[in-house]
């Protein structure tokens, strides 16, 4: 894996207006993504994790302009040059979409029920005018085999497939244009564990075969740990921590990350220090986020400064790769995942 940056997202914002009354006047904004900056490196898998409503899906969609961002810059490296995709016109955007594709969560609603597998997978090739119809069919056959389906499935329709197979169709469609970056938005969340393992393995195989870069959005920290190289943790529209996988699980630097690690079910009886850390309350509304640090309403370590001043995302001492947005990063001694998973194996 190189350390070359493929995509550089800076100060990205996405505000959705809240309209009220008969005149549909804008009465406020839901700050779904609020000033988010991160990079995706060539060949890596960047995991993005957070609870529902934290803005992770909106971020994934905004960076490829499936949703138009409110503000901020997204630079994508093409042939050694960084290009600002938020300024792209329609033609440039279409060319850009060949390089970046998306796999969605729900394989039941992301496929058109009236299109056969052949039509679904060859549609991107058709839209981008690649090859004759015959060539396209050949390519679809090849893609189906790549994702572990059979050519006999060519003329079937989505309802004839199981969830795992549908997700494979979605992956074949995403691969059709030979993209560089694939954004997987909760791509395995709707699947049974045995099938989830198949798809995770498939994604890893495809990555090494085609040198793909992934941005993997998920709420399941075990899945994120399995597939990611680096991880971005989001809370209420903001990034609270960025770290390599190792750093995040061994040495979390934001209290929210600690709380997430403490909440992961481990399937065993915990003892002593391994007791779950319970976070009180729920995520505040992104339409009316609390002042200061947005996490202070639930943070067990919150002090006065947290209620007044918003922390910035800064490097954690001695590691350029590790950033956290907390006033007390250096002072706090947070528990690692391994502290939380001390278990009692005596059978008592």
């Amino acid at each position, binding site marked *: 894996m190189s350390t070359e940056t493929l995509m550089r997202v800076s100060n990205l914002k996405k505000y959705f207006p809240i309209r009220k009354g008969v005149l549909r006047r804008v009465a406020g904004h839901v700050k779904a993504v609020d000033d988010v900056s991160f990079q995706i490196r060539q060949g890596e898998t960047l995991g993005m994790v957070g*609870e*529902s409503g934290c803005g992770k899906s909106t971020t994934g969609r905004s960076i490829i302009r499936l949703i138009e961002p409110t503000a901020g810059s997204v630079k994508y490296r093409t042939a050694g040059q960084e290009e600002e995709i938020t300024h792209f016109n329609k033609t440039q955007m279409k060319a850009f979409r060949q390089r970046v594709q998306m796999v969605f969560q729900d394989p039941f609603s992301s496929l058109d029920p009236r299109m056969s597998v052949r039509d679904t997978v060859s549609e991107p090739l058709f839209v981008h005018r690649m090859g004759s119809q015959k060539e396209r069919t050949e390519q679809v056959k090849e893609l189906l085999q790549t994702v572990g389906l059979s050519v006999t499935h060519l003329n079937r329709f989505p309802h004839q497939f*199981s969830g*795992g*197979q549908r997700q494979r169709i979605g992956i074949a469609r995403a691969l059709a244009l030979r993209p560089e970056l694939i954004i997987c938005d909760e791509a395995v969340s709707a699947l*049974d*564990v*045995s*099938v*989830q*393992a*198949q798809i*995770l*393995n498939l994604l*890893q195989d495809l990555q090494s075969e085609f040198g793909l870069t992934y941005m993997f959005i998920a*709420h*399941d*920290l*075990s*899945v994120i*740990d*399995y*597939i990611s190289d680096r991880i971005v943790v989001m809370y209420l529209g903001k990034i609270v921590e960025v770290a390599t996988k190792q750093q995040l*699980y061994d040495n979390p630097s934001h209290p929210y990350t600690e*709380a*997430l690690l*403490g*909440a*992961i*079910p*481990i*399937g*065993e*009886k915990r003892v002593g220090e391994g007791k*779950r850390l*319970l*976070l*009180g309350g*729920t*995520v505040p509304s992104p339409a009316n986020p609390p002042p200061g640090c947005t996490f202070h309403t639930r943070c067990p370590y919150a002090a006065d400064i947290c209620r007044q001043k918003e922390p910035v995302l800064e490097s954690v001492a001695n590691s350029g790769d590790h950033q956290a947005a907390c006033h007390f990063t250096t002072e706090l001694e947070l528990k690692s*995942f*391994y502290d939380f*998973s001390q278990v009692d*194996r005596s*059978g008592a």
Partner: protein
Amino acid sequence: MTEPNRLVEVNDLEVVFDTVEGRTHAVNGVSFSMDAGETVGIVGESGCGKSVMSLAMLQLVPRPHGKIARGSIIYYQRGKAVEITKLNPTGKAMRALRGNEMAMIFQEPMTSLNPVYTIGEQIMEVLRLHQKMDNTRAKQRAIEMLEKVGVPDAAQRVEEYPHQFSGGMRQRAMIAMALSCTPNLLVADEPTTALDVTIEAQILELLAELQRDINMAVLFISHDLKVIGEIADRVIVMYAGWVVEEAMREDIFQNPQHPYTRSLLAAIPRIGRRERLVSIPGRVPSLSQLPPGCFFAPRCPAATDQCRREEPQVFTVNQGHTVKCWNYWDKEVQKTS
């Protein structure tokens, strides 16, 4: 013959659905028992029959398509055996048990709460019906219950409607409703699946705490082995309507015997473990097109001709640990006899 602590006994239960594709067996000869205060977890993938099993416990199998075709569920009401499967599902006796003696919580709290009644009215209905409380007392009790499950400002929120509650709060309200008559058995069908992990941790902790308080037995159904491992004393693994393995929690995790249980454990990503996930090839068979012999044989790495031909028997590994697999018989039982 029966243990003094016994609460529920399920014997050879079979639940069938009549569909256009013919008769399907959602639950196929399931037997297990539960003691008072015990937590039993049922785990399995979608379509394994775990939800139908949970509905059958309260005679809630959707009719007329579904019905209990064979077997029995015996519930011990203060030591007196009541055969639930003999009761009329809509009859007075069954309705007196539901809510009062046994209660249920579902996965999606939004669809199981009525959007046009306040949370308070919905909890009060249960209390008026089963405990014959008047409005004032029922309301008092509803507020008490909401406080108990950790809903802040309960006195005020009792007047609110379900849409004003967040997902975690709705699940708390559901739990408050289910526990308002202090049932002896709670059937929880994927109660935390729709929730975020921090909220899931809160709800699991809450359930465990309330369970200790009123010594209630919980039948906890989930697709997530790790969640089951957090809460259950005993684990039942289901596959295509069968119980394929049953054991104490430690045995399931440390000494799994059925190839399906082993595969499930190997298929879960675990933090810090770097090796490739073991995936189970294929998928759960459709209940209307079950293979002959062992239902797991087509996906089983260790399947033999016998597995493809004959339904496996249930073998005892040790006390309380059973497995439905011919391989176990080949390896262990034959060796010793």
